[in-house]
């Protein structure tokens, strides 16, 4: 008996040792790309500069709304290099200087950087000081030289700077902040030594400063009042004429400032366009000698003649975008124009001297899911017949980037995927009977050949060609990209909502786009000027009718930024990407609560809370109301008012008291509220458990055969508050004046179950809540390191149930109902550890049944994702764990959490601009799917406790086969031998 138990113990230890050896997620280099994919994006392009030398790589350098500077290959649109700037380092200007440097101006005109054009190495960086705030303007004149140095003129923070383009030295600067002038433009006439700084003072004065570009000396300053007042916009028509509108927008005002002398010339709009009712809008495109005005949906090009006369050149309808002017051969300039019409886009390139002629007119078929054209950038090249050819880079409404050339789309980039707002997953369709899979599967010979190759690989006998063949075979596995459900649940659709209001369905196999939909409800329209997408929810997940009904998702958005703005709802079929239903301008939406009830068609009930704390029930069917009424008294929710420091609990009261009877509208009442003292606590983070999480067991068996009961409640809320002084960045508060307080609050009763203060700590706090524990990351000011803490919460009222005698006598409370109303007796355990890095996001792995041990997925500041076993964050860790504790898997306590390079799930890749991590369970219990998004996308499969329930991809069937054959052969041989031996025996 004792021996047996020893043996079992030894075996367990061995198992433990084996599993401990693989505490981390790890990957061999040749496994890259087998289960993961990585996609790189740049975001919506703001500005583009072409670099097309006669020989060598042709490229376009772009700056984007995601603060990315990228150099793209013009031939295929691939990224040559890319730099992602900090989140508050917004790029306001980009240009190429000296033909080898990319110059970027960012951070409100205070940081100027030069990047090497071929490889993106930063060459120099200049910090431009200024005291004011202003428009930031970057101008890289090609001909302006001082002592053989090319100058860059930058206006930012109220100062004008001249910077050497070779080393970034500031040669001179001139402060305009004290002049209270709102600078509009910097004009540098070609060939001259002067620059003009022009702008408005208030709304009634126009000022011109003439500056010597050699030393920054102010040569002349003129100011002239204007009685009508300015509208604020200004457009430079030529190097000495500025165009603006008066404050009533009824007159066009030409301001000429030749040699610093200001002259106004006003032209009533009705004189030019006749009596039209619309208000004109100046289009901000730099076209020499003329300008464009948008009026009543049409764009009118107006030329400014030498004497300041205005002359209408052309009127074009349905204009989507106009490019800036580019110079083509022999001193001429041209510009591009994009129009929409009958499902196509029409690209026209016109010379600036004669806008009635067309240099190019092309019509291109366009996927209507891309919306309208937002921006166009034109570039010319010399064709073989010496005529001018044009290529156009266009930015679409869905943030995608396309290159048009010779009437066709040469390449396109789905850069909307760089700004994902929310993600849900959907199952793929079930494989239907009749659709045979066998056809596509390889025959036996191919199968065997593949495995022989694999075997060669494992035995290290494979040649280089074989290795390549193996790799290709593994990567191009057809299985992975099938559009049907698989047995293990690895194939799914990731449905993502982007900031542009486009919905993409990505296949988890290789990340390919299955369908995409530009949501009509989230497009700019007359009724909805600034639509923003908020979240996606699972609307309908058919289980009973999985064969003939498609799942659908609910997309919630609102028209405008404020929470009072009217909401928009869309329901989209997850298989086809078609909008099934939409509701625009319903009511304001502050909170969406997916309820745990479904109707007979398996549509999930959702309660949408508006700004007046009324609940609106969806779907709007009487059946839904019936189900809802049954559970009426059991519905509770909470709201967090972070600015006021209040957390409130709500319950339903009754139908709305409105004039119109609305049976789907319900009034709510406050049932509890927690008010944090505003002078000492400020809410910075709130986290709850995921609704979809499955917990395998409530009991946790600890070393000495004791049982602890996890306190598992879906109604727990983790709240972190900091002292108001410590709510800023690191370095702004001292340890004495900053503290972090964390709470665990029951959201039904409003009871605070646990409260703990970390003195000398501050935010930002990133937290994740799972089962009965919460892990949070914050900054410890005393140690000046980041820390991670874990709180585990256990139910004490069930603790005495482990007494067998009581169980037998029936004196246990196992059958007593678990109620959210009861006051639980809980105990909490907590521990803190240092963590090296800043954190951008934390999530936890989810598995189908919740049996597999958990890993934390930590998105670090380095844009990598680290998988950290939850066992490292176990409050029962101690310096010297006992033998029993060691067997249980408790790791000796260390002050810091280990960073094991092999446990980076992103291995040597970066998910630039990482914003979020989403995990979804696969059907296979051991495996979970993790999707990380930011500017880049990364997807992988994780097995936190190794794949114990399936053979790995590496498993060599051929080796198994050979072994069996060898065994059979051996049996025969030995049989023959024994026969012979027996015969010999008998002869003896």
């Amino acid at each position, binding site marked *: 008996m004792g021996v047996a138990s020893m043996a079992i113990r030894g075996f367990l230890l061995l198992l433990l040792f084996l599993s401990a050896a693989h505490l981390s997620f*790890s*990957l*061999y*280099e*040749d496994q*890259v790309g087998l289960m993961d994919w990585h996609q790189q994006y740049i975001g919506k392009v703001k500005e583009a500069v072409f670099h097309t030398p006669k020989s060598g790589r042709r490229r376009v350098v772009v700056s984007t709304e995601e603060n990315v500077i990228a150099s793209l290959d013009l031939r295929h649109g691939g990224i040559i290099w890319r*730099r992602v700037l*900090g*989140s*508050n*380092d917004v790029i306001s200007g980009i240009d190429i200087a000296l033909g080898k440097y990319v110059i970027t101006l960012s951070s409100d005109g*205070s940081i100027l*950087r030069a990047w*090497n054009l071929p*490889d*993106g*190495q*930063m*060459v*120099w*960086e200049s*910090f431009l*000081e200024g005291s004011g705030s202003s428009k930031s303007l970057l101008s890289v004149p090609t001909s302006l030289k001082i002592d053989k140095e090319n100058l860059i003129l930058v206006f930012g923070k109220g100062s004008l700077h001249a910077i050497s383009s070779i080393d970034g030295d*500031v040669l*001179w*600067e001139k*402060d305009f902040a004290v002049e209270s002038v709102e600078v509009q433009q910097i004009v540098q006439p070609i060939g001259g030594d002067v620059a003009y700084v022009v702008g408005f003072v208030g709304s009634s004065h126009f000022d011109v400063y003439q500056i010597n570009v050699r030393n920054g000396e102010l040569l002349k300053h003129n100011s002239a009042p204007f009685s009508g007042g300015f509208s604020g916009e200004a457009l430079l028509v030529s190097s000495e004429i500025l165009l603006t509108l008066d404050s009533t927008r009824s007159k066009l005002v030409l301001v000429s400032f030749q040699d610093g002398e200001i002259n106004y010339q006003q032209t009533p709009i009705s004189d030019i366009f006749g009596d039209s009712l619309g208000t004109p809008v100046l289009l901000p495109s730099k076209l020499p000698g003329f300008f464009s005005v948008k009026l009543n949906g049409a764009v009118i090009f107006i030329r400014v003649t030498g004497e300041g006369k205005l002359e209408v050149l052309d009127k074009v309808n349905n204009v989507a975008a106009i490019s800036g002017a580019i110079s083509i051969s022999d001193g001429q300039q041209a510009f591009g124009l994009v129009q929409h019409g009958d499902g196509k886009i029409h690209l026209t390139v016109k010379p600036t001297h004669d806008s009635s002629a067309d240099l190019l007119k092309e019509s291109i078929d366009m996927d209507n899911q891309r919306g309208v054209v937002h921006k166009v950038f034109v570039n010319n090249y010399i064709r073989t017949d010496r005529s001018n050819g044009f290529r156009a880079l266009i930015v679409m409404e869905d943030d995608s980037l396309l290159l048009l050339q010779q009437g066709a789309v040469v390449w396109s980039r789905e850069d909307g995927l760089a700004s994902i707002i929310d993600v849900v997953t959907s199952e793929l369709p079930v494989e239907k009977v009749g659709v045979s899979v066998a056809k596509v599967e390889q025959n036996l010979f191919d199968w065997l050949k593949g495995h022989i190759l694999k075997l060669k690989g494992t*035995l*290290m*006998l494979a040649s280089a060609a074989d290795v390549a063949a193996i790799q290709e075979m593994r990567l191009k596995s057809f299985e992975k990209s099938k559009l049907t459900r698989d047995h293990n649940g690895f194939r799914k659709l990731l449905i993502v909502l982007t900031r542009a209001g486009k919905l993409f369905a990505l296949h988890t196999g290789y990340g390919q786009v299955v369908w995409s939909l530009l949501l009509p409800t989230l497009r700019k329209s007359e009724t909805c000027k600034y639509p923003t997408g908020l979240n996606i929810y699972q609307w309908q997940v058919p289980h009973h009718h999985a064969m003939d009904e498609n799942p659908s998702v609910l997309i919630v958005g609102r028209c405008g930024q404020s929470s009072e703005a009217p909401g928009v709802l869309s329901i989209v079929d997850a298989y086809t990407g078609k909008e099934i239903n939409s509701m625009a301008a319903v009511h304001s939406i502050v909170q969406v609560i997916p309820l745990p009830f479904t109707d007979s068609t398996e549509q999930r009930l959702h309660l949408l809370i508006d700004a007046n704390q009324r609940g609106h029930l969806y779907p709007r069917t009487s059946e839904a109301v019936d189900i809802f009424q049954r559970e009426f008294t059991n519905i509770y929710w909470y709201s967090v008012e972070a600015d006021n420091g209040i957390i409130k609990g709500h319950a339903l009261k009754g139908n709305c008291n409105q004039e119109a009877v609305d049976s789907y509208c319900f009034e709510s009442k406050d049932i509890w509220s927690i008010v944090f003292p505003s002078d000492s606590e400020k809410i910075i983070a709130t986290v709850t458990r995921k609704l979809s999480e499955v917990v395998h067991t409530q009991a946790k068996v600890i070393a000495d055969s004791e049982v602890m009961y996890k306190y598992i409640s879906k109604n727990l809320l983790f709240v972190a508050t900091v002292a108001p002084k410590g709510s800023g*960045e*690191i*370095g*702004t508060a001292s340890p004495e004046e900053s503290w972090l307080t964390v709470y665990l609050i029951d959201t039904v009763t409003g009871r605070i179950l646990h409260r703990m203060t970390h003195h000398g700590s501050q935010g930002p706090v990133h937290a994740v809540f799972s089962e009965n524990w919460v892990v949070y990351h914050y*900054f410890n000011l005393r140690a*000046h*390191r980041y820390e991670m803490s874990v709180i585990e919460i256990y139910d004490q009222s069930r603790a005495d149930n482990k007494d067998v005698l009581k169980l037998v006598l029936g004196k246990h409370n196992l059958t007593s109902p678990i109620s959210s109303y009861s006051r639980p007796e809980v105990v909490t355990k907590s521990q803190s550890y240092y963590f*090296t*890095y*800043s954190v*951008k996001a934390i999530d936890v792995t989810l598995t189908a049944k919740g049996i597999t041990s958990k890993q934390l997925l930590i998105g670090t*500041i*380095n*844009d*990598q994702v680290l998988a950290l076993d939850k066992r490292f964050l176990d409050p029962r860790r101690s310096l010297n764990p006992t033998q029993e504790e060691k067997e249980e898997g408790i790791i000796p306590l260390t002050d*810091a959490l280990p960073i094991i*390079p*092999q446990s*980076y799930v992103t*291995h*040597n890749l*970066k998910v630039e601009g990482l914003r979020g991590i989403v995990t979804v369970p696969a059907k296979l219990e051991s495996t979970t799917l993790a999707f990380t998004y930011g500017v880049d996308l990364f997807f992988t499969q994780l097995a936190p406790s190794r794949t114990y329930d399936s053979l790995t991809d590496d498993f060599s069937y051929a*080796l*198994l086969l*050979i*072994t069996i054959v*060898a*065994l059979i052969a*051996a049996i025969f041989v*030995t049989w023959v031998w024994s026969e012979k031996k027996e015969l010999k025996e008998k002869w003896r």
Partner: protein
Amino acid sequence: MARSWRSNPVVLVLFLQLCLSLISSSLAVSPGSADGYTIHGRVKIPPSLGVKGFAPYGKISNIKVILNGGQSVTFLRPDGFFTFHNVPAGTHLIEVSAIGYFFSPVRVDVSARNPGKVQAALTENRRPLNEFVLEPLREEQYYEIREPFSIMSLVKSPMGLMVGFMLIVVFLMPKLVENMDPEEMRRTQEEMRNQGVPSLASLLPGAARS
């Protein structure tokens, strides 16, 4: 005014270098403007670490330097130098993000009282930095190394163990039997004969005792 100082930054830096020469050669915090200081530093990757060339995963151009968890991000110049501008007085944290290397975050104290005096220390091992030169603590290897093929690994695999066990049974067991004392052998055989055909009952522990 700060502006007038800026007009001659080279002299300023030289002056600072002079001031700081006792403390360091390249650690520098300069009063950049009225509301902040400038931190200069350098990231250096020793060639001994990058065995496979300069850097195994990315070039120096991909390295970012991050102040206070993302408050500002800067890049390295070709010589490895970086600068943060407009940093207020206080204790700050600088992190270096470089694929393939593990850098410890650095605690930087910018003192308001005596400008120019700074202290920097690695937070991982509390080692103070005399020079503001950040070096990786170690290289990071993101992949498991595949062990080269060896007979041992084949033997250790489940299939290898199976074959090995079989071989033992086939070749060693008869040897064991041969080495047995013939007396004992006979006795065992007799015992077996006595027991007869093994039945289920005889396999049960209770029955076997009787």
